[in-house]
């Protein structure tokens, strides 16, 4: 029985140990190193596939559970398992990483072994974050993520990389240490660090609100939500392409995942009491950050702000459920959470693809400024087609994955309050405006300068990467049912859980 294998451990440790192997192999045989990294990342993806295929979507219980004591004196366990919420995000992680490895193939000249190793170690640690069911194990993975990302931005990043990476590190570190204190506090209430045990832990409203704020600091920085989003544009702009892809596609999702795994079920009453705060911050992210994206001159910055706006949809979907259930709108609540989840996966594909597109251009002209481009489609027709496709997906064109999540969340918001839905729906206009305007200026029109005139179209490597992502975006856009089904039981269980007050 395949479900008896320690698949989660394999998915965590194959890339980490492989990463150290790559690190040890050094840069003398750079090609062999890259191939090793690619093989390890593909192997990890294959190993993680049983999580999807052997997954029992009829239950909300944790599956593929592994549980052994780790630090017995403090009741810390090596306790991992997945449900319908975390499993798709793990597959997303293992799916994106090989693409990142391929994307860095020729571009990274300085110490490629360290580059590849950082991404592999990062992959294992991120899978660990999604699968940890012990709060301390979760925290260890959560913080360990910072080290490789710190190095990726700092070593291979752009001109202002040091500022960006230190800001990134301190911002996220600041957010998470207060979560640590909250976790320790709950340890003394419940007697162990079992996250599922925390879910059923009785807590008073004041306690809940304090814990909720501690979690909010950690997750809001990670998502990132307005007003603690300022590290993201810096980090994105300065990070190498691969770093931006991992940041946008996966690391931001960890914040969203945190809300579902910690904030909502552990502090349902505080979440209910403070839902206006989150909804407000989400709507500001959707509308205000959308306008901010409109005026960006730098393509990466534009996509970074668009990421913040799209993640606003995710948090909106998660916290709107309280208002919907007050209105007795039945299944609408599930729609909000599921919409948020679909949006997370979809945004993982689309933002990764857009950053890779910018990477393709950047590798050729070493500029991210919109004004340095124009008429790219004349010299790079295939690339132009891909970029337009992903831009459309980013703007939420029906048929692409970008539409599904946004539509579900807007639908859910309608059941809550017309004005929420109205504000959320403005994204369809603003999003289209900033994305398509960028495409217009970069891709279409006359060839504006000699650099663009000399561009060569995509090579096989880039073709494989973008082609895979385009297929994923289309598949999820046309046929989202499997994803929704997989998470259905877990989401409903979560909603039933938070409908019961802990007071």
């Amino acid at each position, binding site marked *: 029985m395949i479900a008896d294998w320690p698949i989660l451990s394999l998915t965590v440790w194959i890339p980490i140990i492989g990463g150290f192997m790559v690190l040890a192999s050094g840069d003398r045989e750079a090609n062999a190193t890259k191939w090793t990294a690619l093989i390890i990342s593909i192997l990890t993806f294959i190993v993680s596939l049983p999580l999807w295929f052997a997954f029992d979507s009829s239950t909300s219980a944790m599956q593929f559970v592994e549980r052994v004591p780790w630090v017995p004196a403090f009741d810390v366990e090596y306790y991992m398992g997945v449900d319908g919420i975390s499993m798709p995000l793990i597959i997303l992680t293992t799916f994106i990483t090989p693409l990142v490895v391929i994307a860095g193939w020729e571009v990274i000249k300085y110490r490629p072994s360290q580059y590849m190793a950082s991404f592999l170690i990062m992959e294992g640690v991120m899978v660990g974050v999604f699968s940890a069911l012990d709060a301390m194990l979760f925290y260890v993975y959560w913080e360990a993520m910072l080290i490789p990302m710190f190095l990726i931005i*700092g070593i291979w990043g752009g001109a202002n990389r040091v500022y960006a990476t230190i800001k990134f590190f301190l911002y996220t570190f600041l957010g998470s240490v207060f979560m640590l204190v909250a976790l320790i506090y709950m340890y003394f209430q419940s007697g162990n660090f079992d996250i599922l045990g925390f879910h059923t832990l009785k807590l008073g409203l004041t306690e809940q609100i304090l814990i909720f704020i501690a979690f909010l600091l950690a997750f809001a920085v990670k998502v990132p939500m307005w007003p603690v989003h300022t590290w993201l544009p810096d980090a994105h702009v300065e990070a190498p392409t691969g770093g931006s892809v991992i940041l946008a596609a996966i690391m931001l999702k960890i914040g969203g995942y945190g809300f579902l795994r910690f904030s909502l079920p552990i502090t349902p009453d505080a979440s209910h009491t403070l839902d206006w705060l989150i909804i407000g911050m989400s709507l500001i992210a959707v509308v205000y950050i959308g306008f901010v994206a409109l005026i960006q001159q730098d393509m990466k910055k534009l996509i970074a702000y668009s990421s913040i706006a799209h993640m606003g949809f995710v948090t909106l979907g998660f916290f709107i459920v309280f208002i919907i259930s007050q209105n007795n709108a039945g299944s609408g609540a599930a729609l909000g959470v599921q919409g948020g989840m679909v949006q997370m996966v979809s945004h993982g594909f689309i933002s990764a693809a857009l950053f890779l597109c910018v990477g393709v251009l950047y590798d050729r002209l070493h500029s991210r400024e919109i004004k340095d481009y124009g008429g790219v489609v004349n010299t790079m027709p295939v690339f132009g087609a891909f970029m337009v496709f992903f831009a459309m997906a980013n703007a939420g064109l029906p048929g692409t994955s970008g539409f599904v999540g946004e539509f579900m969340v807007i639908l859910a918001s309608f059941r809550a309050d017309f004005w929420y839905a109205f504000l959320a729906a403005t994204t369809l206009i603003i999003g289209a405006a900033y994305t398509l305007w960028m495409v217009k200026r970069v891709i279409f029109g006359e060839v504006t300068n000699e650099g663009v005139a000399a561009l060569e179209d995509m090579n096989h490597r880039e073709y494989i990467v973008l082609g895979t992502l385009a297929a994923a975006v289309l598949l999820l856009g046309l046929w989202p049912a499997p994803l929704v089904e997989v998470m259905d039981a877990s989401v409903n269980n979560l909603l039933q859980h938070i409908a019961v007050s802990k007071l």
Partner: protein
Amino acid sequence: MQFDSTQLIPVLPEISLLTLACVVLVVDLYIREEQRILTYAITQIGLILTLGVTIAVSMPAEQILFDGSYIRDPMSDLLKMAILVISFLAFLYAKDYLRDRGLFKGEFYTLGLFAVLGMMVMTSANSFLTIYLGLELLALCLYALVAFDRESPRGAEAAMKYFVLGALASGMLLYGISMIYGAAGTLQFDELAAVVKKGDLNQLVMIFGVVFLVIGLAFKLGAVPFHMWVPDIYHGAPTPVTLLIGSAPKIAAFALTMRILVDGLSELHGGWEGWQGMLIILAVLSMGIGNLIAIAQANIKRMLGYSTISHVGFILLGILAGTQEGYTAAMFYTLVYALMSAGGFGIVIALSRKGFEAENLEDYKGLNQRNPWFAGMMLLLMFSMAGVPPTVGFFAKLFVLDAVVSVDLTWLALVGVFFSIIGAFYYIRIVKLMYFDQPSDETPLTIGVDTQVALSLNGLAMLFFGLFPAGLLSLCSSAIGT
């Protein structure tokens, strides 16, 4: 006084070390300059032998000897082992440095070994007199070692400061001891604990005594506001001596605190009237000022000095919790800190060479290009000091925070994590210099094989204990006696 030879068995580690120090002293007189390596070899082999003896005489039961002035219990066993291992590392890292600079003299080893002996006496003291004896033995050796490089005016200045301030601290300690003796009528910790428990003594004198004791301890630990000597001494002493001062003596200072406050005065623990309140003030100030001022340092030895101060704050957090878990956590933190500190200064030594001290932060620029392996080790050490998982520094902080939250001092835990964010900045600045900047100095590193192996083990230990902290933790908790 009854005396029989079996009483000597628990003291065998000290006897063996004393013999070793004397052998080194004598042998060194009769060998030529180029044979000095022999002195080094005897020292190291002797330390390993002493470690073996310590393990051999260790047992779960506690033994009190020599009319109650000496105690051998699991805590002293573990701390002695740690002191010996760390000292072994310190001597190993120091060897090449001393040889390159014409400081490779027998006195370094003699003084160093007597310092180690002082530390061991401190960990096993059961009365104020014994503990003072060990403390002064340690301190006198260190005063001399700080001035070991006779040519260095900065070393001489540091030694002078260290001596004056150290003497002041000893004075405070003695004054406190005399008051406590006056009130309680005993110098022995176990008897003192019994007397205090009965409560039949002059509380005012006791409290005054405790205040002076805590001041003396804070001096020795380097806690704010009695920390002034730390950065100057760390900076002024030759780096191997800084390593010697900055690592194992912290373990001894921990033992000193545990023996006096916990073995002797645990009844006076509670609240703001007891020593808990004093330690809270010391801990908060140490974490705050240590971390804040470390940011402004351009010299790595000073920076690590201030970092020590902030780590002492964390160790005090564990002790002031006043529970078995708290003491265990503080002990775990102390051992981990000694290991981190040894590794950190080990790297500083390894990057230095004849005529060049890698003291400024700029000297770490581009280390990843010059030597990726040791850059990686320093990375592990720095993240461990910052307390970022999966390194062991995180667990050290976690256990202490756990202990503090368990006694309803959650606000202190918040203060602790807040300052550790500030602390993270200067540690990752080192990582930034090593990884993100171009080297300004391209000289290839020449590091001896033994140092390479030891430094690698030291760095990887951060990762190893970070992934498997349970073993070390259970050692600590059985040493504390839970």
